């Protein structure tokens, strides 16, 4: 059982939902990322998604675009982010870490070299935003051979046929993108999301994480009600941005954002 599967299975048994934060690795500075990861765990997060900064983040809105720019300005590279995971693992062996990346940095490093280094560092899963399963034949088997989960996206526009096909290529969990749009853009229609997630759950046995549009305890609870986990991105990255010049206040700000989400998720009635 992979670390991701272990965590999600245990939560399910306890009737709990996963809180999954997304941060851009290296933002505001590569030296701060591992500390921020520990803060996320302390605030009650279950799985951490680390964004690999990219020069051309086509699927991201302005908040994450700017985070990528800050991270790249300070020399963040894929190799350096893999080192961050290694450092994080020195004092945390339980919280799964997932990379969310565009394909080019991984392809440039070389798929096999990446898979080796990532597995060695203690990474758990990889989600490549611009890599649909149809094109993943060069990558996914290398990841699977090293017990790294391949996580793929599902969208409001994904057909039933594709949901089934994508699920067979996925392991760990599937990531449902709750809105048509880039990260951090619109607010979600909770009823629509609920309907679609229920439908996805009929088509796959994998846990379903829902991301895009979750910005506070209320939306986290509403989405948590119908899914296996909520993924919180832009609002978190924005909190990091607003505290970039006062790192001593960042920890409290992250706690202040995430703790109410954790409490709201834990207060949900058991299914």
């Amino acid at each position, binding site marked *: 059982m992979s670390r991701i599967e272990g965590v999600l299975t245990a939560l399910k048994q306890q009737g709990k939902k996963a809180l999954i934060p997304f941060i851009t690795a290296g933002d505001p500075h590569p030296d701060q990322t591992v500390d921020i990861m520990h803060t996320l765990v302390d605030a009650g997060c279950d799985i951490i998604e680390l964004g690999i900064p990219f020069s*051309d983040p086509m699927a991201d809105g302005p908040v994450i675009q700017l985070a990528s720019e800050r991270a790249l300005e300070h020399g963040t590279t894929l190799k350096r982010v893999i080192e961050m995971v290694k450092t994080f693992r020195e004092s945390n062996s339980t919280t799964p870490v997932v990379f969310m990346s565009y394909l080019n940095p*991984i392809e*440039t490093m070389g798929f096999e070299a990446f898979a080796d280094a990532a597995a060695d560092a203690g990474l758990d899963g990889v989600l490549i935003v*611009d*890599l*649909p399963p149809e*094109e993943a034949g060069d990558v996914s088997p290398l990841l699977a051979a090293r017990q790294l989960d391949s996580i793929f996206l599902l969208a409001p526009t994904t057909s039933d046929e*594709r949901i089934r096909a994508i699920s067979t290529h996925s392991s760990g969990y599937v990531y449902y993108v709750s809105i048509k749009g880039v990260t951090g853009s619109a607010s979600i229609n909770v009823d629509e999301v609920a309907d679609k997630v229920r439908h996805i759950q009929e088509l796959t046995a994998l846990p379903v994480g829902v991301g895009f549009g979750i910005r506070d305890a209320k939306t986290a609870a509403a989405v948590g009600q119908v899914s296996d986990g909520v993924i919180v991105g832009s609002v978190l990255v924005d909190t990091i941005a607003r505290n970039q010049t006062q790192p001593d206040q960042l920890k409290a700000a992250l706690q202040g954002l995430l703790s109410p989400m954790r409490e709201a998720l834990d207060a949900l009635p058991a299914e």
Partner: protein
Amino acid sequence: MSTKLTEDMLKAMPDSRGHFGAYGGRFVSETLMGTMLELEQQYLKLKADPDFQAQFDYDLAHYVGRPSPLYFAERLSRETGGAQIWLKREDLNHTGAHKVNNTIGQALLASFLGKKRIIAETGAGQHGVATATVCARLGLECHIYMGADDIKRQTLNVYRMKLLGATVHSVESGSRTLKDAMNEAMRDWVTNVDDTFYIIGTVAGPHPYPMLVRDFQAVIGREARAQSLEQAGKLPDALVACVGGGSNAIGLFHPFLTDESVAMYGVEAGGHGIDTGEHAAPLAAGRPGVLHGNRTYLMSDESGQISATHSVSAGLDYPGVGPEHSWLKDLGRVHYVSVTDDEALAGFRTLTSVEGIMPALESAHAVAYGVKLAAGMDAEQMVVVNVSGRGDKDIHTIAQLDGIEI
């Protein structure tokens, strides 16, 4: 080493998932996958539909003004002192460049699909103008994304787009040029995917775009081939076209690919020189990678970040290139070369003063290389240079270099 291409090999490109050998494909986020599959299906159906093709041909003849002439540049040939130089005059098309061949085709496709809102990216503004033009004609809502730096160097085209009723969005992110305009157009698309058609301006992007843009632009090569046989009584010995994304080049080259005797030269933007690193020549100095939905040669650094590019010509200032060009490079069928900003500017002045034809700065790259190539060839040989667009839009840039305020 060059591989002999057969009709069968060409028909198999791209394959059913949009691959040209190791290149191409469909690398987009899941939200767009449904649309891409639908577009491919609809396009293949319409490609075989005589009504669709008849409408396209009619528009090319009566709205664009095709066929564009193949013109023997006698004085330029004499002054060069080598092979005969012939010019394929895409600059004479309505809106002043080859771009309109593709926008006519894609707007027709959008109409058949019932999409009322059009988006497009543009570098030099030629594709933006060609898109705004067809939208005006068909009464479609039009949004053009353009890098803030390009807006500054192509003010004339920006105003043309506005006059045509388009909304021009200035893109301030990244390097503020063509690649960033494309990023922003993709963001719009993923947000408005239900009612929006994205008219991509070059033979790049996710499958089926490289295929369909090539098909629409291949009219250039079909005409040039027939015109060569009719006017010169033979096929050309060499073809020359500039390559940014590479749509005018693939359009000219494609119908000649199985003609073994025809050599082909794709001219990339050498900027300040390949060895300075300040250029836009991914085929000369890049490596394969994935950007904007396809795998192709790219300018990127050792950690996979896309590099800043430079070219005096906004239309060539792009870090990638159409995937079919990457395939043709590896096969050795097309020679990819580069000329610098200075050489292209000299090409602009030569063609202007010797033939009275003012080429776009993009096309001036092809002119500069074509002249160089012809000079080393025999008098009975024939070189066709694609003048992909006219130079009016670049007058400000030229004047500025001359220190003249206009």
